[in-house]
């Protein structure tokens, strides 16, 4: 029962990594501007497509913009879309998934059908088309579209979990006492779903960051905004690959991957929290077992 998720190395690492990027998104641009004296949008015509140097730690782009400053500025854009998209998506997932699982019946079936529909639709092409119509719209709109079309997987999980929790005796027992559905949902069922909702939010976060990057890569973005996606897109457009300007497109992609890894690692811990079998399959348990084994000096047959 008692299980400290921060005692789990994977989770701790994930949390640290994610916190770093959140802090970077919030305070980074101020830091680059005031402390490092760099400007993501300034063009340094003395350094066009320059490799990393003391002046530009991560080099410059084709336009003489500092890559480090852009990565930090991009963190804000990407994380903004990530958080907003994940918030919207998670909210819809909760609003659809929890009632679907709790009430079952006709209501539940309809909500479940809706979920499955959004689940089989290839969301990314759909978002592309929608965003295509809305070209030039800001990051808010993009986050909104991503959230509105990206909730189905989460709703499906929540529905299954809400259903299993709702069928457990303690919910029935409290209903027997005369508790209302509203109270049952909020005080008895929902607390069991917080872990899943958190995990869903993290999944949505990385999904939104990736989707934004994908959209930007396709050229669907706010032309004035800087995000990791727009950086990669700019690099691609200026044929950075064919000209060997790796410092331009490697850092933003790596950042996306690191945020994704952080989210996935935290989710791993949440999974282990929810599924004791996964917990006992961890490296730590294996090591402990081996230690007891060695101490006992009885060879293990199996």
């Amino acid at each position, binding site marked *: 029962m008692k299980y400290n998720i921060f005692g789990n190395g994977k989770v701790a690492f994930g949390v640290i990594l994610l916190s770093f990027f959140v802090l970077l998104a919030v305070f980074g641009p101020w830091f680059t501007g005031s402390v490092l004296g760099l400007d993501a949008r300034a063009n340094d015509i003395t350094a066009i497509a320059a490799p990393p140097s003391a002046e530009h730690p991560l080099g410059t782009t084709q336009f003489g913009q500092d890559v480090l400053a852009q990565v930090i500025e991009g963190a804000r854009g990407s994380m903004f879309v990530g958080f907003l998209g994940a918030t919207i998506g998670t909210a819809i997932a909760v609003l659809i998934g929890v009632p679907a699982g709790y009430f079952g019946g006709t209501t539940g*079936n309809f909500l479940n059908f809706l979920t499955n529909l959004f689940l089989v639709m290839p969301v990314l092409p759909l978002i592309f088309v929608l965003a295509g*119509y809305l070209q030039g719209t800001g990051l808010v709109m993009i986050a909104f579209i991503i959230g509105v079309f990206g909730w189905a997987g989460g709703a499906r999980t929540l529905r299954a979990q809400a259903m299993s929790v709702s069928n457990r005796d303690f919910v029935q027992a409290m209903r027997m006492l005369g508790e209302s559905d509203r109270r049952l949902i909020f005080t008895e069922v929902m607390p069991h779903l917080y872990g899943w909702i958190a995990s869903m939010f993290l999944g949505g976060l990385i999904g939104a960051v990736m989707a934004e990057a994908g959209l930007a890569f396709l050229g669907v973005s706010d032309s004035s905004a800087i995000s990791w996606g727009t950086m990669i897109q700019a690099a691609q457009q200026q044929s950075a690959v064919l000209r060997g300007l790796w410092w331009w497109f490697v850092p933003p992609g790596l950042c996306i*991957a690191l945020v994704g890894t952080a989210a*996935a690692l935290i989710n791993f811990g949440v999974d282990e929290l929810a599924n004791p079998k996964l917990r006992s399959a961890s490296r730590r348990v*294996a090591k402990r077992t081996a230690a007891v084994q060695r101490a006992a000096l009885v060879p293990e047959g199996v």
Partner: protein
Amino acid sequence: MTSTASAVSAAAADTAPAESPRTPRKRKRGRFLFRRLGFYLVAAWSAITLNFIIPRLMPGDPSAAIIDQLERVSGQSLPPDTLVSIQGLFGNPDDNLFEQYVAYLAQLARFDLGVSIVNFPVPVADLVAAGLPWTLLLVGTTTIAAFVLGTALGVAAGWRAGTRFDAIVTPLTTFLSSVPYFWVALLALWAFGFVLGWFPLAGGYDPNIPISFDPAFIASVLQYGALPAATIVFSAFGGWMLGMRNMTVTTVGEDYVLLAQAKGLSPARVRWRYAARNAMLPQFTGFAMALGGVVGGALLTEIVFSYPGIGYLLFSALQKRDYPVMQGVFLLVTFTVLVANLIADSVYVWLDPRVREES
């Protein structure tokens, strides 16, 4: 109510019908697939309707804008049938919504997806039909390859959960599955195409060889396709693997695996026939969720490699606001994904005698 459901399932479990083994099962599977087919038809209809609604929801008059654009591109007024076709897809100011919808459905039934703005006057259907085989080739093979590779590695990691292999491979895969597809594609293109020069930098085949089925052309297809395919597999297998790893860990704890070990079966048999065989089932039910992401990622990958599939087509269309092409691609991708899901369901039904439906 939920309470009823649990009581019923308990009651139903107690009274497990003692049916005779053979024939009803086949009929059951048939009916299950039939119901799924029904669902996919509704899904397809929803996609078609969505495709109808989106342009009509947009501010302004997309229909007029497109016609205007087409006339500018072609430098002449549109032939009447093209005009009808565009108005059918994007809105006809003279008809009410219902009339528009009926006309739109009738038009789709004739595979009339309008004409491309950029490649005027090539019909969208032709453009899409030209790109589809390339995408199917690339995405189809890589999806299967990633699925097989991910599942196999997932079994290996899950079976040896807690070992060093698992402790290294699993976090590494977590990282890989978090990397954007197109960025991996860019890196691969830069490293293997640009720096090492092992692979061509763009295209789906050698433009100097005429398109045919002769060995030289096929060889060039393989050569051009290898790098895009590899990057998609590289980015996609991690998701399958992590799912399979956790399912395997869970399954290994099941009594039937314990009993299989107690029976003295070979470890390989226990692992595959008992553990993996059961752990694999959720992989198919989760297919829909994973496939959408893979397809989206693969479309982006095509763009990096200028691969002549529909992803690249979509990209060009987005760049130039070629709405007919965009919507045609969306419809086609959706249909393909639905068919893939139906196939996954069939495989699932074949794999699980219980045909446990989630509904």
